């Protein structure tokens, strides 16, 4: 019965897991380093606006390189919700 209610096909799950796994394998970037990076970025941005540090996400991804391996480049994705803008405005 459980299979009937399973929405996502395992093919899609496998592909999704692999995409994330391979990016971290290829970049070889430790979780500790990512945490340090996240803290530093949040410090810098906090000088200018109030951000939600709890909801902030830092992730390494990859451009698709038009399907060609050699043209793929790592990309840093940062997602930080802004709580207040302008109050701490650039002086």
């Amino acid at each position: 019965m459980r299979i009937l209610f399973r929405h996502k096909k395992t093919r899609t799950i496998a592909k999704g897991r692999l995409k994330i796994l391979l990016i971290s394998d290829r970049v070889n970037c430790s979780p500790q380093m990512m945490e340090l990076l996240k803290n530093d970025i949040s410090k810098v941005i906090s000088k200018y606006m109030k951000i939600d540090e709890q909801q902030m996400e830092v992730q390494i991804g990859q451009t698709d390189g038009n399907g060609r391996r050699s043209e793929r480049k790592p990309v840093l994705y940062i997602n930080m919700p802004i709580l207040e803008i302008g109050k701490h405005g650039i002086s």
Partner: protein
Amino acid sequence: MSEVIVITSGKGGVGKTTTSANIGTGLAALGKKVVLIDTDIGLRNLDVVMGLENRIVYNLVDVIEGTCRIKQALIKDKRYPGLFLMPSAQTRDKTAVTPGQMIKMISFLRDQFDFIILDCPAGIEQGFQNAIAAADHAVIVTTPEVSAIRDADRVIGLLEAHEIAKMECIVNRVRPEMVRRGNMMSVDDVIDILALPLLGAVPDDENVVIATNQGEPLVGTATMAGRAYRNICARLVGEDVPLLNFDSGRHVLSKLSGVFRKSQGAKL
């Protein structure tokens, strides 16, 4: 012009040796002069897959150490005039050979053969380094499974670092019915992830086990896998053979046999 092709995968058990045996035999059937070299020192298997295990006198390590001449270690396969096997040593370990020695030995073989096919051991240690040292072209074998694809990606990274110019992949053990039900990644999914050109896809076929039981490579036979391997060999000699479409529609089997019938006149 000879071409040195290494068959590699990272993960064990995905079909490197079966692929090597079938590519070597298939190329010989197309009239090429081929030598298959088993580089898995200590765990040799290409000899049994080829059915030549009873004819071994000398092996790869004997050649490297100068115990025999290259010609003495080459077993002539009686099925095709241009097919030879250089077996690996069973009682030695990978440190018996260095990448430099492999390059030197293969440079001698280049004059005598059209294709030199190297069956690489699993893993990324010295045995792998030996196998890729002299290769012009790498064929990465993988299956549509997370672990095999992850290892393939790692190996591709190492081959890139080694500056192997030509890399292609074979997706082995595809089960079209599972792909159709959404329970297995398709050939396109795998290619999308690895971003390598596809040399061919081989369906999961029980005839591979039957062939291995008998020590007879099945390339060129009327089986699904036999036809897939034949197409791979045709592509390696530069023929433009369309890729088989495994995952479209319900009647995959009948579609496949249609494709096969059309291309049967080709070669072999």
